[in-house]
């Protein structure tokens, strides 16, 4: 019986390489790629719709990758909002990966875009292990998920730079203390940015755009 020492390579090496390839592709095309994660019904799609509506009049060109296990509901909402969109069905897979994003990008006029929103499958745990190559990652949670949300998924929130707490207009109705979510997050991620939104009524969206860096990088100054 003897031990054989192996390369010590990352098991998901190919995925990490593809994520890096995506990152370079976006950067070469001058596209700011933003990845959104969060549970089903947290409001990821509504937030992207609101951002598209704000960016469109400024002639910012927007692409979207709408990932869901099935259906094209989100994709159709993005198209209606004015984005160049690709529908990506993962067919029961619980997360997007860099390989799928890589292929989805082939169906977008990537060189003509300024911002690309990549909406992950509604799931909070699985996507965390699969980097896609985005410049910014944001986790969206809804107050309806309960004010113990961060306590239930501390490891994810400890590594998430931007958290959006959505549907704050419903906090009272569902008996949730929004401050508790923000405090839990601050305790494990002292440098993270925590934002409050009510995407349905377009509340707090300026702050989200600013945190994602879309205003400063993508709005052409000559646009009027």
């Amino acid at each position: 019986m003897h031990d054989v020492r192996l390369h010590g390579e990352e098991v998901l090496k190919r995925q990490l390489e593809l994520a890096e390839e995506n990152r370079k592709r976006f950067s070469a095309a001058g596209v700011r790629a933003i990845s959104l994660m969060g549970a089903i019904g947290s409001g990821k799609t509504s937030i992207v719709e609101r951002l598209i509506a704000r960016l469109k009049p400024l002639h910012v060109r927007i692409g979207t990758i709408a990932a869901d296990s099935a259906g094209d509901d989100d994709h159709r909402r993005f198209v209606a909002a004015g984005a160049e969109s690709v529908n990506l069905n993962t067919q029961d897979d619980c997360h997007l990966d860099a390989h799928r994003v890589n292929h989805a990008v082939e169906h977008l006029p990537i060189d003509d875009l300024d911002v690309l929103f990549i909406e992950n499958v509604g799931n909070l745990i699985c996507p965390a292990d699969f980097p896609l190559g985005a410049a910014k990652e944001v986790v969206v949670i809804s107050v309806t998920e309960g004010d113990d949300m961060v306590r239930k998924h501390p490891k994810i929130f400890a590594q998430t730079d931007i958290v959006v707490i959505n549907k704050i207009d419903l906090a009272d109705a569902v008996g949730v203390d929004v401050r508790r979510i923000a405090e839990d997050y601050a305790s494990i991620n002292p440098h993270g940015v925590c934002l409050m939104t009510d995407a349905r009524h377009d509340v707090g969206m300026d702050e989200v755009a600013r945190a994602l860096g879309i205003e400063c990088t993508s709005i052409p100054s000559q646009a009027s």
Partner: protein
Amino acid sequence: MHEYSIASELVKALLEQLEPHPGRITHVFVQKGELRILSDPALRTAFELLARGTRLEGADLVIELVPARIACPACGYEGPADHADDEVFHYAIPVLSCPTCDSAVKVLSGRELCVDRVTVETDDDEH
């Protein structure tokens, strides 16, 4: 349940890397960074199933937890992260903040999942 995707990559990588090493594989040791969000029992079950019918069938998957390492651009600290392990969270969560000056830090390692070594049993072992 993303452990099956990972176990499938793991089995593929192992079979490739072990080609020059004949014998029966009894143990596979992988190192998991503490920032990785991955269930050990789910990964072991996935590995056991996906290893069936290959040289890895019956091998034990041993998952070793490796602490995260961080670097502080403000004060130059380099080393492990502090952990939030109060009663609320029930298990230790590495906090990505400088333990000496509270600045934002860069993660040097802790998100990896790497195959470290395997134990191989060959016919020679029986003599």
